[in-house]
């Protein structure tokens, strides 16, 4: 199978990358009607499968599950999840032929095999749905021409998809219709109804394309979300230990700091995060983040280029075929870092201290978010898509680090994200070698303001504030966050 994106002429590539429309709530007035009375069959009952299915059924839709034979016979967890919640469960042969919509929620690595076995059983004119576009875009999976192919991708873990729905809200969601597979023109109406069924329409729905979703998702997760948070955490910890800061304190500062710092991001973007610093610290963080952006820009660009050309998917799938050799080696290496091995100390660090003593991480986050956003937009991805895959998701991932450090983060994210994260981390650490040599404990480990004059030059401060506030990620973010204000209380991932 050929990479779908690479088969497109440039004009069409740009076309699809540029699909991005933040939908007005009036677009959802028809509710779930487009799917009412239709048979929805979900393949797989894992994190997304179970929770999306519970929501769709509670929205009045007819939902059942199909699992591979081994799962049914072995009464695996996926079988128990479905049957104990009173869903009908059957084999592919039993359920797929009558399904109006087949929803594929198996792990991405399995998609080619799964789709190959269910497609021949699907009835004429049915719909196949995904929550991620990797299989269609990167693996170039060809779907029968009579079938409609849609995507409904919640931008949160499955447990949040459920928790927010029962509160009466939802999580932000991307929807798309694959232009090669919309023979009856019903794809968009069905995708919208699906988003209503999972509650996504209450938190903001972005009309996207398979291509835009995949290319931006991969870029975000490799660079700012997982890659840079990992690199930044490891380097910060090592620096503190090198400078004689107590290892338990360092471990705690790094483990929880990134969550506290990015909480401000969630509420008020880069501006709010930077405003938590004193004026001198803000100016310093701004300066070093500019430096970091210059150092890391070529690496971000390389990742974006490899994602666009399909090179990234190629080497990753090669590694899958190779029994995950690199992935497993890098995973083991991450598990053996000093940060991972040092338990957080029994010290109290108050909220403001996380900002004052960890200015370096604030700089990393600003540099990473802005660079990822800028690089995506330069590559033809629209700002709204770029926002979701950079700034919006950063606090969600930071949360997983706070829970159990990097191992936990890499366990929760997809294999694709994990592979990309290690790839970035391996390249980024040496790149920052010279930069890190200059870093002292006022940036990481001790209060930046200690022993310093609190005064700043007016013009410098105004210029710095201006640069932060007028960045495009801030302007787009302000609009999108407004739609999600009720997300304020989400405790994620």
């Amino acid at each position, binding site marked *: 199978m050929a990479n779908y994106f690479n088969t497109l002429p440039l004009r069409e590539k740009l076309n699809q990358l540029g699909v991005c429309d933040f939908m007005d709530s009036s677009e959802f007035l028809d509710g779930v009607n487009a799917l009412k009375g239709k048979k929805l069959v979900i393949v797989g009952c894992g994190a997304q499968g179970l929770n999306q299915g519970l929501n769709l059924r509670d*929205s009045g839709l007819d939902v059942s599950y199909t699992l591979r034979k081994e799962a049914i016979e072995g009464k695996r967890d996926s079988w128990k999840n479905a049957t104990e919640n009173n869903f009908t469960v059957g084999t592919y042969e039993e359920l797929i032929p009558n399904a109006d919509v087949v929803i594929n929620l198996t792990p991405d690595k399995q998609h080619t095999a799964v789709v190959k076995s269910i497609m021949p059983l699907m009835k004429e004119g049915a719909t196949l749905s995904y929550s991620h576009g990797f299989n269609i875009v990167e693996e170039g999976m060809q779907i029968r021409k009579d079938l409609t192919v849609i995507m409904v991708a919640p931008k949160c873990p499955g447990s949040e998809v459920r928790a927010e729905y029962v509160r009466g809200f939802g999580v932000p969601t991307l929807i798309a219709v694959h232009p090669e597979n919309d023979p009856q023109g019903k794809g968009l109406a069905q995708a919208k109804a699906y988003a209503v069924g999972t509650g996504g329409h209450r938190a903001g729905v972005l009309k996207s394309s398979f291509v835009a979703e995949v290319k931006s998702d991969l870029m975000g997760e490799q660079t700012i979300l997982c890659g840079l948070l990992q690199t930044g955490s490891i380097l910060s910890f090592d620096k503190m230990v090198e400078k004689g800061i107590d290892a338990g304190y360092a471990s705690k500062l790094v483990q929880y700091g990134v969550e506290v710092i990015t909480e401000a991001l969630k509420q008020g973007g880069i501006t709010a995060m930077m405003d938590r610093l004193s004026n001198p610290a803000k100016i310093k963080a701004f300066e070093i983040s500019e430096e970091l952006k210059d150092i890391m820009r070529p690496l971000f660009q390389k990742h974006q280029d490899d994602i666009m050309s399909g090179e990234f998917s190629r080497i990753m799938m090669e590694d899958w075929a190779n029994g995950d050799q690199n992935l497993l080696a890098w995973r083991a290496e991450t598990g053996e870092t000093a940060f991972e091995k040092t338990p957080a100390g029994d010290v109290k660090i108050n909220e403001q201290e996380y900002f004052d003593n960890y200015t370096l991480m604030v700089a990393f986050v600003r540099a990473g978010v802005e660079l990822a956003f800028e690089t995506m937009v330069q590559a033809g991805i629209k700002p709204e898509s770029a926002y979701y895959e950079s700034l919006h998701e950063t606090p969600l991932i930071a949360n997983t680090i706070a*829970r159990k450090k990097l191992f936990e983060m890499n366990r929760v994210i997809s294999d694709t994200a994990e592979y990309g994260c290690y790839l970035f981390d391996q390249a980024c650490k040496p790149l920052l070698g010279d930069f890190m040599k200059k870093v002292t404990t006022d940036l990481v480990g001790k209060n930046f303001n200690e022993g310093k004059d609190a005064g700043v030059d007016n013009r410098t401060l105004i210029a710095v504030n201006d640069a932060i506030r007028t960045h495009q990620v801030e302007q787009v973010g302000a609009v999108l966050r407004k739609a999600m204000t009720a997300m304020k209380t989400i405790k994620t991932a």
Partner: protein
Amino acid sequence: MKNLNNEQSHNNSLSFGEGWGEAFVSISTLNLKYQHKLVLKDLHWTILKGENWLLSGISGSGKTALAKAIVGLQSVSGEVKINFNTESLLPAKALFVESWYQFKNVEGVANFYYQQRYTSVQAKETLTVNAELMSYGKENNLAFADAEPILKALGFSALKNSQLIELSSGEHKKLQLVKALWLKPQLLIIDQPYTGLDAASRKHLNVLLDDVSAEGVQLILICNDAELPFCINRFATIEAGELVEMNSREIASALPEKYEREIPDFLKESPVYSSNNIVKMVDVNISYGEKQVLNNINWEVKAGEKWLLQGPNGSGKSTLLSLINGDHPQSYANTLYLFGNKRGSGESIWDIKQHIGLISPEFHWYFDASSTVWESIASGFYDTVGLFQHLPFSKSAQVDELVAYFGLTENKNELLSALPLGKQRMVLLARTIIKNPELLILDEPCQGLDLQQTQHFNQLVDELCSNGMTLIYVGHFESLLPNCLEKRIVLENGKVKVIERILEKNSIIEKENYSTLVEQ
């Protein structure tokens, strides 16, 4: 009543051991301000060796704050000295058991929702009761064998393999009590020891409290209940920030006067029913794996009926109600009609909830703590936990009216979580009725309220119900029920034990006592 600021003598029929007469806890000039309001004012309190106190009084008087100050959980000005007995075998600790329970998932965070315990998920999110007790025992060097009799006495043994998320509020309360009674700290303060406990458990708890007291644990119980352990020998309340001793246990017997405030007009309208059949259950069964929680339930609720639902802790009451409120995933495989429609015939859970106003201890516990008072009440129009939309003018005016009716105007922009529990509960009760629903489901609505608040709320329920509203009310405390109740369903071990007509309020009380005797 006498003011305790002066040293005084008192009669006591109990015999005291060694050390009698010595001060165990000495509190002097305690002051606490909360938002400009003085909660505790130069408070003095001396607890002598051998004394066990009851601290009662109205909601918001500062009882909880005082207790927290004693154990160091609340910063105050003034002095608290605890003179632990160094010779005692009991741990030299002052333990405060909160009226609220808290637990985390295995990863250390807690983002739960109240329906979560009804959903089966194989990946276990929370610890089991057993694992929780094991780690508590280890942390405090306790022998597991010592916990067994306590578990047994409180009817908790069968829950050892349950996950924390699966426990009801009454069961969480028991878990807290088990831990405290197992630890036997020299000073044990329990805030609302009886909330959520059924009649039998309350009796057993009193026996257990008398036992630990005999072993040397000194108690402070914070509640307004009348049936106390025998060991309680001193009584006090907080008035205007000062501790006031009372003579005996005739504490809360004075009935408050009738609430004279007129209910808002929009709550006087009779509900419009789309069907005369509110609930119909035919042979309903609910189970988790091997464990059957509801067993062949047949029950019908007609429009305008007022039901009392009763049963011991763990008998299936909350599960039964979750079926009606559209909160139970297993509804879809049962024969259940709600508001005239078969469940699972294309309706959404929001279609169902639109007819219902619901409150339960679990609902309160998992409610969005970051909402303001006003937003919490307004969210009742949309059945959401937290407010996600702007209210049209007429609805927002109704919220204002109800806020005023409940006397919450000065709190309306405060965060719900910043209020004392009793006040929070009042807010959620207002939320429950804001849309003047066809069906009110009140699962222990008055937990955490003082006697007067309870009487007033029940009076409001009577008024609302006189306009034709349908009611299902869960209450353990027979004396504190609304008058309008006319039918009763009793569950036991997941089965319907009794369905009957209630003739007079007094006749229930007799029967309830009778069935309590049978239970034992």
